[in-house]
């Protein structure tokens, strides 16, 4: 069986004024289904850029990214948006919950793009919130939650559509030690119990230890 994610000769550079700044150089990487991979590296090494490319929120300058046999580097913006909705769950460092929506409404948000009925959406959102242990905080707004609880709500939002891959950009970067531990345990559980493929970017070696496999990136190269 081919790897779930295949990254082939991917390079990425940005234009800063009239200068081309290379960020990733000929990256080749395979991620198997059910894997929990941590990407580590210093600031500016290109790890978040690689994560964004895999998540389909940015496009490579050259090379191919195939996720479950779909070459996402060839998809249009509209097709890519639809693909993300169906296949990717994203967990951000700063949670990025919508402040005017309750925890339940935030989790329900990605389901609005699906043909599910209100009843089905409710069931799925409640299940996701139960998995992350926030069943009793459904009606709370983000400002009424702690950092750890906000991140758990963000994880519930990421898993509610049952995506192929869950991607975390420094998911514990803004949390205290205990909360970070809770989040890592939750992610580990998603991987082991629910067989989810996880890919996280982290600075924290302790967080990386929880992954099955750790890759290091430096100055745009996998090392």
């Amino acid at each position: 069986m081919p790897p779930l994610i295949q990254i082939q000769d991917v390079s990425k550079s940005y234009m800063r004024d009239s200068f081309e700044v290379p960020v990733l150089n000929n990256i080749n990487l395979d991620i198997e289904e059910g894997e929990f991979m941590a990407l580590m590296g210093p600031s500016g090494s290109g790890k978040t850029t690689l994560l964004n490319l895999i998540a389909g929120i940015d496009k490579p300058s050259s090379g191919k990214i195939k996720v479950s046999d779909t070459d996402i580097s060839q998809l249009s913006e509209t097709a890519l948006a639809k693909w993300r909705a169906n296949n990717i769950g994203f967990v951000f460092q700063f949670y990025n919950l919508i402040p005017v929506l309750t925890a339940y409404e935030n989790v329900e948000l990605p389901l609005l793009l699906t043909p599910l009925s209100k009843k089905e959406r409710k069931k799925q959102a409640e299940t996701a919130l139960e998995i992350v242990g926030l069943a009793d905080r459904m009606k709370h707004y983000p400002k009424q939650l702690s950092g750890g609880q906000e991140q758990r709500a963000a994880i519930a939002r990421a898993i509610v559509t049952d995506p192929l891959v869950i991607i975390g950009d420094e998911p514990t970067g803004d949390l205290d030690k205990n909360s970070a531990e809770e989040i890592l345990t939750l992610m580990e559980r998603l991987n082991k119990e629910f067989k989810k493929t996880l890919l996280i970017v982290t600075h924290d070696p302790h967080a990386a230890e929880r992954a099955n496999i750790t890759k290091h990136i430096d100055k745009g190269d996998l090392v």
Partner: protein
Amino acid sequence: MKILKLILKNSLRHKLRTFLTICGIAIAVIAFGMLRTVVTAWYAGIEASAADRLITRQAVSFIFPLPYTYKDKIANVEGVDQVTFATWFQGVYIDKNQFFPRLAVDPETIFDVYPEWIVTPEEKATFQRERNSCIIGEDIAAMYNLEVGDAMTLEGDIYPGDWQFIIRGIYKKRDQTVDGTGMFFHWDYINERMKVDDPIRVGEVGWYIVKIKDPNQSAEVSRRIDELFLNSSAETKTETERAFQQGFIASFSSIITAMNFMSFVIIGIIMLVLGNTMIMSSRERTREYAVMKTLGFSTPHLTSLILGESMFISFLGGGLGLFLLFPLIEGFGMVVPKNWFPIFNLEEITIVLAASSAILVGIVAAIFPIQKAIRTKIVDGFRFVG
């Protein structure tokens, strides 16, 4: 939860800002409606003009008189149904700053040619019988608390001296488009006195009002009338009542144009105000839009979200403005003397224009924020520091 709920929640995120913007739109709609109503009030005479009436005046200028002897000649022109005439008397009643039209007319024909001024047969008969009688409009009667049998004394200026009249009738308006501020009295009464006071002005009338049999023949009948008096000492210019009124209004055209312009400037200003609100809101939510895009929300979703919020605010503002406009126009109409604006009604077209403007404001104000939200790349959205 639906997108509508998110639109509502986003709109109420900054309650004070939203409230102030709604108030701003409401005030703009009210100002727009008031200005447009003043403009339409100015044009009311034109709107009320009848298609089957022509006005024959002195070709050189409206202010020069025509001979009384033209009356029968005009009446004999092919296509003419009836002829009456009027003379601008002006004068002062109580206060020289209080203006209303005072006209010396032909009592036998004036109410036949102007059926929109409704008088009872008894009032009409008494008016025709008594040379010093007058008939006034219901608005003037209400304004000065006058009743049938009361005396009215005018201080003449064009026709010097004191002129005493007895009110023998109060005409009713056929509908809201009719001016209820007129005062009409016998031309004979003025003419007789001119024989003593100023004989050179005897037999002069201001203009003729010609009722024609077929409105489609107005151009032909006008030409026939004017041809009758070619090369005479008082050549005529005949035109439809509408054209005559338009010519009269033309002297105020710059004021009306300025008011029209101002009404649309107000809409432009409020467009900028709402646009600014939407740009601020959109800018504050740059990261949220990036999150939504990451979750799979596409251009149509973000467009509906931003446009929906803009339309929601403009609908509330426009609705509030229109809701308040009705009583304000009514109140304004009651406070402002009837002789300033004899017809002061909120026209349907004003309501449609005000509502359309509110909708337009909502759409235009959303364009830039939508463009910005769509064009901002997800990665740039996450890097944004507001």
